[in-house]
């Protein structure tokens, strides 16, 4: 267990120890690689793992920086990065055949910010291809397994990142969330995941799936680590026109120092969100709710009928944007390539894309093209956008009356690998709790609120835009009350 001591330490404690005693970083890295060697074959969380030697070189660079007296906030901390976030010189595949050997010549803004603070990328994690999926089964590199029970899915699409953090293959991780892709695997792996307010974290370098819905966000084992990571990666970026010009400086300290009292906090539960969730999930969820009530929270159920339409609206919008974002993949400038001589562009592009995209990506790109096409654009795409406005306005109305909206993160417990993947609709429906935050652009957090059948159950908290300090302080209090943090999976 002594090995676990350092590996399961929270990042915010580790950094203090590393600053005091930089040699510890080498020990930490060595132990991490031992851990990876041990669990990776069972889990398949990584697509590309950096070599031990390369990482040690990076550690030595950080050590020099510390010696020079440089102030860095994440010295030596190993970060697992979802493989749709561009890392310079390090293969970035989006778990797709069509990018199987793509090496970006530039870093995403979030990566630059991490490196600036002394953090080290340990590897690129497995995901559903182009972030399209909720189980990390849609990967050209094989599925990732849930460390609590390796027969089960770890959630998705940021499954690899969540698993890496959960099993201490890294201390913290970056994921992306378009319709729940951070919160779902956080819930299924017993970790903490944040989807920030839209526009808070730069998407420069994030390979786009659905640009108006997605954000990069942190996955960690506790709320404070997530807050620290969010502060470092977030903030205005002149290279991303959709960032809001808001700085997150001071977020971590604010959350750290907060003592958010639960007394009188008004929580809303939206009926249509919990309706249809599995018994076992609801049982654990309501147990947690009762605990909160006993701490002084006031909980009310509200009905928002428009929520019923959130899933089709989400999928129409996401597929439409995806069909556009993925148009660029034709093999000429990067990725899977078909020799061009003697052939028309029509044939070459058709062949590359047909060979390079997996079946779920194909479905979404085909349908996305359809819902944008002449004659159908109004009925599908524009309609979905009107529903989106209604959803956003209704949620904002609820959040005027209530402090937060809570729900289970997922309506089901982690299920067997292969169980739902054959039927896309069976998968789409499990996003019912999570898509709302993406449609409205509001922040959402998932923390563990209990267990069922030895499997973690996630609780989701949503709040108005740009209220991360309040949201994370509240989440920290919940974490303390409910008692689940820095969890060690029993399956590995």
């Amino acid at each position, binding site marked *: 267990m002594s090995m676990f001591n350092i590996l399961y330490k929270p990042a915010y404690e580790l950094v203090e120890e590393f600053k005091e005693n930089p040699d510890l970083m080498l020990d930490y890295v060595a132990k991490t690689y031992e851990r990876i060697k041990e669990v990776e074959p069972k889990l398949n969380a990584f697509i590309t793992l950096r070599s031990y030697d390369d990482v040690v070189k990076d550690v030595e660079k950080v050590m020099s920086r510390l010696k020079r007296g440089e102030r860095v906030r994440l010295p030596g901390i190993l970060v697992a990065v979802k493989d749709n976030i561009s890392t310079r010189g390090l293969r970035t595949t989006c778990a797709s055949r069509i990018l199987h*050997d793509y*090496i970006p*010549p530039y870093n995403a803004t979030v990566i630059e910010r991490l490196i600036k603070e002394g953090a080290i990328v340990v590897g690129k994690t497995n995901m559903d291809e182009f972030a399209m999926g909720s189980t990390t089964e849609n990967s050209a590199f094989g599925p990732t397994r849930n460390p609590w029970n390796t027969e089960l899915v770890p959630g998705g699409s940021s499954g690899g990142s969540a698993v890496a953090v959960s099993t201490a293959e890294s201390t913290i991780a970056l994921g992306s969330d378009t319709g729940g892709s951070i919160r779902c695997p956080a819930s299924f792996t017993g970790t903490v995941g944040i989807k920030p307010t*839209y*526009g808070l974290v730069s998407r420069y370098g994030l390979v786009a799936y659905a640009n*108006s819905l997605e954000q990069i966000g942190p996955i960690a084992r506790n709320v404070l680590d997530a807050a620290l990571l969010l502060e470092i990666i977030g903030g205005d970026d*002149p290279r991303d*026109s*959709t960032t*809001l010009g808001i700085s997150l400086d001071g977020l971590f300290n604010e959350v750290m120092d907060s003592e958010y009292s639960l007394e009188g906090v008004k929580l809303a539960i939206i009926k249509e969100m919990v309706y249809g969730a599995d018994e076992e999930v609801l049982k654990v969820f309501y147990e947690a709710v009762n605990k909160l009530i006993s701490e002084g929270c006031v909980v009310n159920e509200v009905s928002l009928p428009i929520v*019923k*339409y959130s899933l*089709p*609206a989400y*999928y*129409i919008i996401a597929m439409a944007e995806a*069909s556009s974002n993925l148009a660029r993949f034709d093999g*000429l*400038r*990067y*990725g899977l*390539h078909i020799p*061009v001589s*003697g052939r*028309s*562009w*029509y*044939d*070459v*592009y058709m*062949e590359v*894309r*047909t060979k390079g*995209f997996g*079946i779920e990506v*194909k*479905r979404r*790109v*085909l*349908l996305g*093209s*359809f*819902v944008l*096409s002449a004659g159908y654009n109004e009925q*599908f795409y*524009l*309609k*979905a*956008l*009107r*529903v*989106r*406005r*209604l959803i*956003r306005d209704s949620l904002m109305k609820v959040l005027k009356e209530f402090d937060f909206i809570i729900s289970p993160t997922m309506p089901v417990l982690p299920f067997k690998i292969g169980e739902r993947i054959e039927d*896309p*609709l069976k998968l*789409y429906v499990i996003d019912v709790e999570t898509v709302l935050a993406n449609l*409205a*652009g509001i922040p959402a957090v998932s923390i563990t609120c209990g267990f069922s059948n030895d499997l973690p159950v996630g609780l989701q908290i949503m709040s108005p835009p740009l209220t991360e300090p309040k949201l994370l302080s509240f989440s920290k209090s919940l974490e303390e009350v409910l008692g689940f943090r820095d969890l060690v999976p029993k399956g590995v």
Partner: protein
Amino acid sequence: MSLRSDLDKWMDKISRLALIKIESNERGRLLKDLMRILEFFEEIRKLKLEGIDPLFHVIEHGGKLRNDIESQVLDLKEVLMNIKEHEEGFVKGPKTV
């Protein structure tokens, strides 16, 4: 049978828009999946929402403007790094007819 040929035409059309070929052995299954998803979308189609503006973007007014100042371009080496077929710095591409 006419429904089938309508569906076939439809598949051909979206295949062209997306430049993704639907192989004949996949066609049946894919068609079934796509139809079911479209049924799933039917709920949206049936809604009457006149008077509600589409929300194209959660950031309805914002955006950024950039000053007209040059910055570094990519090295040719970096550009060619991922290009499989190139000739004297040009990217080799397929015919345009």
